[in-house]
C-alpha cells in the first residue's frame, strides 16, 4: 500500500471519526470528494451549488479533494449524510472504504465505475447494497443514434470501431441501432490492427460513423484516420467532444462539467427530499443534460441540412423521448 494511499485512508478515518462528534441536528451534511482541484472539478462543484439554489442554505456542503485528504485529513466535520464522489479517483477511493453512508458518484465514465467497483471488492471491505448510485458521463447509445438520424436522415447503416475493452458499449449500441431500425457495422481494432485498412472496410459499409469514446490513447490513435476517411467517403462523423467537432466531425454530443454538476445537484435535492441518493431501480444513469457542437463547414460540405443547435437539441430530446417510450412499450 502506497504512502499516499495510507495518508488518504488516515484522512478519511479522521473525517469519519469527526462525523459523530460535532454535527448539528438541523443541517444535512454533504461532502463533495473531488478527484482533483483543476477546473473541471471546480465546475462540477459550481454546477452542484447552482442547482441547490436556495436549498444550499439548508445543507452543510463541504468540498474536499483527495489531495487534501492525504495532506491534512478531514478533522472538523461532524457527520456525513451523503458522500458525493466527483471523478474516477474519488469514486474508486470511496468504494474502497467501509462506509455506512450513501455514496453518490458523478463525473465518471461507466467503464471507470465498473473498474472502481471491481477494485473495491477487497477482503474486509463490503459496500452496503443499495447505498451507491451514480451519474455517468457516457451518452446513452439511444441518444447518439437518435442524433445520427436527425442530422443524416438518409443514413441507414452506422459504423463504428472499438477496442476489446469497449465490447459492452458496442452491445449497447447494437441494441439501440436495432431498436431504431438501423444497422451497425463495427470492427475491433487491436494493437496489431492496421487501422486504415480496418476502418476503410467499416466506412465502405456505412452511411454515418459514430465514435464510441475509449481511453484517450485509443481515441487519439484512431481520430485522425476516422476524420480523414470521413472526408474521403463523404460520411458524417458523430463525435464525443467539442474538440472532435473542431477537428472535423460533423457534430458531437457530450456533457460538460457544469451540466454534470447541475444534474448532480438535482440528484442531491432528491436525496434531501426522499432520503436516498438515487432511484433504486436505476442506480447508475446517463446524464440528463448535454451539449451539441456542430461543424457547419463539414455539414455543408456533406450536404447535410443546416440546423441550429437549439433546434437540433429540442428535436433530439423529443426523438429520444419517443424512442424510450417505444422501448418501454415493447
Amino acid at each position, binding site marked *: 500500500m502506497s504512502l499516499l494511499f495510507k495518508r488518504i485512508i488516515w484522512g478519511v478515518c479522521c473525517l469519519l471519526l469527526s462525523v459523530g462528534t460535532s454535527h448539528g441536528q438541523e443541517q444535512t451534511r454533504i461532502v463533495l470528494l473531488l*478527484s*482533483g482541484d*483543476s*477546473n*473541471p472539478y471546480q465546475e462540477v462543484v459550481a454546477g452542484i451549488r447552482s442547482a441547490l439554489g436556495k436549498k444550499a442554505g439548508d445543507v452543510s456542503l463541504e468540498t474536499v479533494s483527495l489531495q487534501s485528504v492525504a495532506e491534512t485529513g478531514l478533522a472538523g466535520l461532524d457527520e456525513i449524510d451523503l458522500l458525493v464522489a466527483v*471523478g*474516477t*479517483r474519488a469514486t*474508486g477511493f470511496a468504494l474502497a472504504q467501509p462506509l455506512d453512508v450513501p455514496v453518490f458518484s458523478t*463525473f*465518471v*465514465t461507466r*467503464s*471507470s465505475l*465498473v*473498474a472502481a467497483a471491481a*477494485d473495491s471488492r477487497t477482503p474486509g471491505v463490503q459496500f452496503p447494497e443499495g447505498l451507491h448510485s451514480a451519474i455517468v*458521463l457516457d451518452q446513452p447509445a439511444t441518444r447518439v443514434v437518435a442524433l445520427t438520424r436527425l442530422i443524416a436522415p438518409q443514413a441507414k447503416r452506422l459504423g463504428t470501431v472499438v477496442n476489446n*475493452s*469497449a465490447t459492452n458499449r458496442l452491445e449497447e449500441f447494437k441494441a439501440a441501432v436495432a431498436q431504431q431500425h438501423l444497422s451497425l457495422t463495427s470492427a475491433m*481494432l*487491436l*494493437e*496489431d*490492427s*492496421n*487501422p*486504415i*485498412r480496418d476502418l*476503410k472496410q467499416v466506412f465502405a459499409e456505412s452511411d454515418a460513423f459514430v465514435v464510441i*469514446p*475509449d*481511453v*484517450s*490513447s485509443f*481515441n*487519439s*490513435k*484512431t*481520430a*485522425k484516420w476516422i476524420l*480523414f476517411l470521413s*472526408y*474521403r467517403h*463523404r460520411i458524417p462523423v458523430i463525435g*464525443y*467532444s*467539442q*474538440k*472532435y467537432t*473542431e*477537428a472535423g466531425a460533423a457534430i458531437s454530443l*457530450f456533457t*460538460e*462539467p*457544469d451540466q454534470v454538476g447541475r444534474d448532480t445537484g438535482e440528484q442531491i435535492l432528491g436525496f434531501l427530499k426522499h432520503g436516498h441518493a438515487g432511484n433504486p431501480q436505476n442506480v447508475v444513469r446517463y446524464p440528463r443534460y448535454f*451539449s451539441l457542437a456542430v461543424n*457547419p*463547414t463539414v455539414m*455543408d460540405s456533406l450536404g447535410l441540412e443546416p440546423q441550429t443547435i437549439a433546434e437540433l437539441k429540442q428535436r433530439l430530446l423529443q426523438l429520444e423521448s419517443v424512442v424510450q417510450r417505444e422501448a418501454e412499450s415493447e
Partner: protein
Amino acid sequence: MSKWFFLVVVLAVSVPSANAGMTEADLFADVPVVNGATRLQQRATEVPVSVSIIDREMIRASGATEVAHLMRLVPGFQSYSVLGNQLGLSSRALSTDFPGHLEVRVNGRSVYEPAFSTVVWSSLGIDIKDIDYIEVIRGSNTPAYGSNAFSGAINIVTLDSLNSPEVSLRAVAGSIDTREFSASHAGSTKHFNYLVSVLSRENSGFPALDEPKTGPWPTHTVKDDMRTRQFRLQGLYTPTLDDEIRIAIGVGEDNLRLPENDVRGYHNREFDSHFQQVSWKHALDNGNVTLDFYHNYLSIKDDTVLGRFSELIGVPPALAGFPGQTDEVLLGDIRDGLSERYHLELQHTFDVAQQLQMVWGGAFRVDRLGSRFLIGDDDIISVEQYQLFANADWRFHPQWNMNAGVMLEHNSLVGTFASPRVGINYQWTRSQTVRLSGTIGKRTPSLLSVYQDTAVTFSDGTVIDQVGGTDGEANEERVDLLELGYLGYFLDGALSLDVRVFHERLRDARYTPDAPANDLDGEQNLWRNGLRWDTDGFEAQLQYRPSRKWLLSWQYAYLDLDGVWEEPGDPDDLGNHLPTHNTSLLLAYRPTPDWELSGTVYHTSKMEWTGGDEVDDITRTDLRLARQLRLGNWQGEMEVLVHNAFGDYVDYDDENIFERRVFLRVQFDLN
C-alpha cells in the same frame, strides 16, 4: 460553452490510474493537433509565439497562383518578384535576391537550398491546390527548428492519400502566356495508401522585360520565362495501431530564362531536382517517437555567355587582352552546380508529469554545395551539422502555462551555439490569452557565405572580375526577440484577434559590403559578419467567419527598423528597407453555395528593396469569381482570377512592372 474550454481541461484534468479504463480525462482529452511552434501538440493559445494559419478556405478565396504569394496574408511578410519567375519571401529581414532567414518546410521537409541560401520556389514541386494548410510562425523559431528559422518558420502541409479526392484535375490559362496543368490520383492497395501527382507550369514572366533592352551589345529581347515539370508520390502505411510510416518522393525539372547582361539578353538556367523522405511515427503508452529522414538534391545548369572580353570592356579585339591573354568569349554565373541536403532526425514527445509535456530529440544534417563558379573549385564542399533540442510546456496553473525550449547546434563552420526561448501565457478567460516571451536565435552562416569565391575569369583561370568572396571569418548571426502577444476569440470562435508588439535586436548578420579587389574594377562583394539593426514592430490579424457565407481576414504590420548598411565610404540607412506599413484584407462572400466572390487588397508602404530598387507605395487588388460545377460524379469549380486589377506597380525592381493579369482556372474532383 466556449470551444476553448477543452484547451484548459485537457491539461488540467488529472491522469487516472491505468486500470480504470476510460475516465473523465479521456472524454475531455484533446484530439491531437500538430503545431510547428514548439514541436508539441498545442493550441494557438498555448504557444510562446504568434502563429498564422492559412487554410484551404483562405487559399481558395485568395485566388493566388503562387505559393509564395499566399504569405501576403501573414502580417509582416513580404512576397516579391526578383524576376518574373524568381520569387523572394522575407519577414523583418533584408529583401535580397536570395533571402535566407526563413525556414520553409513541406510536410516537415526543409526546402532550403544550400547553394543559394534560400528557397527556390519554382522547384517546390507542389501545386497550390494540393495544400491543406500553411502554418506560419511569425518570429524567430530557432529554439524549435534551428538556424534557418531565424526570422520565422513556415510549414506547408499538403493533402495526403486519405484526404485527397480520388482524382483531381486542374488547368489554368491566361495572361503572360500562363499554361498550367496538374493532376493527382489518390488510391490504395490492401495495406498501402498513395497519392500520385503531376504538375506542369509555364509562363513568360514580366511582359515589361520583353521590351528591347540596351546594353554592351545590340539590343535583344529579354526573357524571364519559366517551364517546370514535377512528379510526386506520397505513401502511407499503418501496419499497427501504433505505427505510421510515410514516404514521399519527388522529381522535377525547371527551365528558367533569366534576364542578364548576356549576349542574348537572357541566359538559361535548368534545375533538376529530386527528393526522398521517409518518416516513422510510433505511439507509446506515454507520447510517441518519430524518426524522419530526407534527402534533397538540386543540380543547376546555367549557360550564361557574357560575350567577348573586348565587347565587355569596349575596345577593339586586338587591344583586348590582359598581358599574355588573347580575346575570348567569357562565361559567367553558376554554370554547373549542385546543392544537396541529407537530414536524419529523432524526436520523442511525452508527458513528464500530469501538467508537463515535453519534446526532445536530435538531428544530423549534411549540406553539400558544388559549383566551380560559386566557390572557385571543382570540389564539393560539405558541412555536417548536429542538433539537439528540447521544448517543454508546463501548465502550472489552470490559467497559466509556461514554455521553455532550447536548440543546441554544432557544425564545423562556427562551432557550438545555443538558441533558447522562454515564454509565459495567461488565459484570463477561456477564449483570451496574453503572452510574453523572449527568444535568442542563432543562425549558422550559409555554406555559400563562408566559401564563396566567384570570379569571371579567362579560360586559364586568370581573374578578370572578382565578383564575390568572404573575409575568411564566419560567426553565427544572432537575434534577440522580446514579444508581448494577445490572442482572443469572440462570438463563439467566429471572430479572432491576434496582436503582438515586439522588439527585435539583430547582431552580426552576414552581408556583402563592397571591398577592394585585385581585378579590373578593383572591387568585390565580400561576405562578412557585422550588420546590425533593431526593429520595433506591431502586428495584428483579425479574422471573422460568421457563417459559411462570409470570410474576412485582415492583416497589418507596422515596422520601425533602425540600422545601417556599413560600407566603407558609402553607409546606407536601412530604415527604409522594410515597409513601415504592410497590410492585406481578404474578403469572400458566397451568396449561394454555387457562387463565390472574393477580393484581396494588399498595401505596402514606400520602401527600398535591398536587392532591388526604391519603390513607392504599392496597392494591389486581386479579384476572384468562382462557380461550382457538377458533371456526373465530378465536382468542379471554374474561377476567373484577376491579379492586380487596378493599375501597374513596380515589384522589387524598376524593370519589374506588374500589370493586370487575368486567368481562368478550372478544377474537377472525383471523390
